[in-house]
């Protein structure tokens, strides 16, 4: 389960950055990019909370 969540998180990060490169290469347009970035954002925050840095605390 944890491995699946990590995989989904990284797919979310991929959806955040890869479409912008596709805009740069002319394969997709800005609107498609914005939608994919939003899906990537939801995927990242929806999964990362379950596996990353469960107890990191630095009090300043």
């Amino acid at each position, binding site marked *: 389960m944890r491995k699946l969540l990590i995989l989904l998180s990284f797919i*979310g*990060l991929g959806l*955040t*950055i890869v*479409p*912008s*490169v596709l*805009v*740069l290469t*002319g394969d997709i347009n*800005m*609107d498609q*990019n*914005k*939608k994919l*970035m*939003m899906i*990537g*954002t939801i995927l*990242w*925050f929806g999964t*990362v*909370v379950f596996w*990353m*840095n469960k*107890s*990191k*605390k*630095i*009090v*300043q």
Partner: protein
Amino acid sequence: MKKNKLVAKLDAIEEFERTPVPDNKLKGLKSFIGMYAGEHTAGTEFVIGPLFVAHGASAGAIVIGLFLGNLLAVMSWGFLTAPIATKKRITLYYQLEKICGYKLVSIYNLVNGLMFCFLAGSMIAVSATAVGIPFDITMPTLEDWLPTSIGWIITVLLVGVVITIVAILGYDQVSRFANLAAPWMILIFLAAAFAVMPELGIHSFSDVWDVANTKIWTGIPLEGQSKFTIWHTTFFAWFANMAMHIGMADLSIFRYARKWQYGFSSATGMYLGHYLAWMASGILYAYFLTKFGSGGEFAPGKIAYEAAGLAGAICVVIAGWTTANPTIYRAGLAFQSINPNWKRWKVTLVTGLFTSVAAFFPALVMKLLDFVALYGFVLMPMGAVIFIDFYLMEKMGLQSFYAEKANVRFNWAAGIAWFFTLFMGLIFFLFFDVEVYFLGLPGWFIASAFYILISFMIQKRKIAIA
């Protein structure tokens, strides 16, 4: 009953404000890498990058100047701050109290807390530029210093209240969330910049340098803005966090580090946040200027929204929040150390509300470069005092932690070093046209020299009298 329980819980939060951090509470390298990446890929980055464009920095000044300045900043954390922090393991405020005495450190804490409030205020304002988008609020322009509309004030107030409540409830969850958001946030910055490149005329790698020079960092400032050179970008990058490294505020962070070498973990924040993110946000602003012209709004939320859609706007909110939150927390800690009997959560509440009111004024955003440089310069002299006290006082036959050992409440050596450095900075600024970005370096030597000199006079006289 519920209220009493909450108050008891808040009162019980133990954060080693007046004791060294015990071994079992020390943190590993990953905590610092995440924290620095998160804290320095933040709301300020959405303002600073565009302001470099507005100030007409050239592409060379950005690429080379920021690289060098950030390197100097990492060295400052690694070689100046972290070694002292891991040796003493106490907060900046408690260490200063031992050196300067209670009365002087109270003045310092008041100034420090106010500076933190204004910095956090600018971040609340940055978040508000994104939160206000759906409500079509009139955003401020580069020339605006005063609140632009009632809608702006209400949005800022709402953002400020939420951030204050989170800061009161403890640092744990914010710290954790900053870690979670950091990788995503830097990718949003980069993705937004990539996506607008074709609109600026970049279609292949060979176009990058030409477009960077002609359309992004053109070397020509916008109307009403001063001109930035490579010296400005280098010194700004070095001193943007001067209060934290040379000024020693991050003693309070690195007191949790297992090893002093963790100071170099600040490189994640510098090169992701203060290099890539500053460049990326500059590219976004250049795109915004191409689309809307230079006379319009200066609203990081709108700039990010135009380039990256809803994800960009969310990024601005989170970036502003994850910066404002620890800053309000630090401000609360600074004010609380004036009177340790005050409850931290009550102090944070008042601090957060004051900060929210300060955020009404867009000047905090539009003049952020000047404010950041001033903030570092004002607090830096006490960092010089701590450095000299730690490394040189005993070697010169003088007493370190003088105030504690001599039981004085105002160490004039530190006080004169601080006030005279600020006075000299004012003289340089007013009569020799030295810009605020460059005052820190001579200031450090002035503060150090005066602290040593006056310490000799005070401590030797005491010995002679005794």
